[in-house]
């Protein structure tokens, strides 16, 4: 652990053996505790994706935690208004570190049908870093499931030391879109 110029501690780059990194990525991939952050109409499709017909729990996404402390996936589903933006930012900061954000619906992607409204934040990525954007107004539950599968691919190919070393603030890229099911 070295302390660099601006005082932030840096985990110096350590080569993690392949199986260990695979196992850790695999466990983060299949245990995405989803934090219910439903704002507007997309929250209804977000609930519908956890229901019998689409059943998001098949992918290992468990919609249990009610407190941001225990969650690691935040799905911003709905319109982020200027009055709500600070609350979104604060809840995002409450979540423990390896956290991922899915921006669901065109309202949170870029303001959507409210592109000319005087009180809507045009896109949630102005406040928090977003991993996967799910287009649609509202996106179908299958759309959200596909967004989660793409996120799981991203997690599977993630490089943990890179993520924890602090200087990799940028969002890790999606490498290949391999099949998700099974190990």
């Amino acid at each position, binding site marked *: 652990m070295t302390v660099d110029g601006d005082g932030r501690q840096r985990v110096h780059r350590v080569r993690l053996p392949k199986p260990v990194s695979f196992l*850790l990525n*695999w*466990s983060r991939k*299949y*245990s995405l505790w989803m934090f219910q952050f439903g704002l507007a109409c997309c929250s209804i499709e977000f609930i519908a994706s956890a229901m*019998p017909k689409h059943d998001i729990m*098949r992918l*290992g996404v468990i919609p249990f935690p009610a407190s941001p402390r*225990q969650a690691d996936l935040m799905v911003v589903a709905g319109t982020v208004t200027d009055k709500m933006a600070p609350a979104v930012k604060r809840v995002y900061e409450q979540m*423990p570190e390896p956290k991922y954000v899915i921006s669901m619906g065109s309202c949170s992607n870029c303001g959507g049908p409210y592109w000319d409204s005087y009180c809507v934040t045009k896109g949630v990525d102005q406040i928090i870093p977003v991993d996967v954007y799910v287009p649609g107004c509202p996106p179908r539950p299958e759309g959200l499931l596909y967004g989660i599968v793409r996120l799981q691919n991203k997690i599977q190919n993630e490089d943990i030391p890179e993520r924890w070393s602090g200087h990799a603030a940028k969002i890790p890229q999606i490498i290949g879109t391999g099949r998700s099911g099974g190990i």
Partner: protein
Amino acid sequence: MLDTVHHIFANSVVLLAARLTVLLLLLPATLVVGWVELKVMAHMQHRLGPMYAGAYHGWAQTLADGLKFIQKEDIIPTATDRAVFTMVPFITMLGASLTFVVIPFSRRWVIADLDVGLFYALAASSIGVIGVLVAGWASANKYSLMGGLRAAAQLIAYELPLVLAAVAVAMQAGSLSLVSIVEAQHALPFGLWAQPVGFLIFLAAATAEVTRTPFDMPVAEAEIITGAFTEYSAMKFAFGLFAAEYIAMIGMSALAATLFLGGYKPVVPVLGFVPGIVWFVLKTGVVIFLLIWIRWTFPRLREDQLQKLAWKVLIPLSLANIFVTGALKLAHWI
């Protein structure tokens, strides 16, 4: 044969080793019960539940949860009472796993067959109350304070019917040692013929002790977000609340199986050759399934109704049960 084995077990080193094996066996047991709960809940709700984690029916789902919680950042809010905040998971885990010292898994496999086994088991199970109350106070968060107070009030209120229901069983078996209680049920398990009321009271009180629906006010997601454990993250949450709750549930189910369903006694005498531990695991599994079933059907009780149920219904009922058992005992019917 009994006393030689007894003598070996009494030896402290072996005792420690046995204690550790049981504890180590508990952790995978929580993973299994966690997975069973996810699947049973899902099928009750007309859906599939975890499928892809570990390819075949998501068997590795709770394993993935556990591994993931290890990697999570461990947040300790600045306003919390640091030492107490980090101590809570140990208390709740201790409280939950102490009951396994006296529970007889089979005729020979019991860690310490205390003469006051039942008394010890019930006393140990009430340590969890301190953990939740302290978690509520240490997290310096309004919601967890309310959660902690609710938990304390509820667990104390349900300690009484739990103990009184167990007293009736002890009276009928004539001893507090769990092994002799199970031996006394050689003909028919108490739960079925002599103590049906006691069995129901014990189950209700056990659900309340483990704070599961319909008594899960302290961890009510809807109102006070995960109650006393709102501020806990990563391993403290996984260990302190998640695993401790499952271990406490298994402990209570094991106790209920031992007292009322005849522990390791074979259900059908013809199948006597099957080892005791198989029966024990089957009966505990039945009680665990019952707890899961209740959890996913009933709404939550408000805590004043909850207290009313404890003080005005369960305690008088269990006292009456003791009276009836005593009368039958005197008349030598049981």
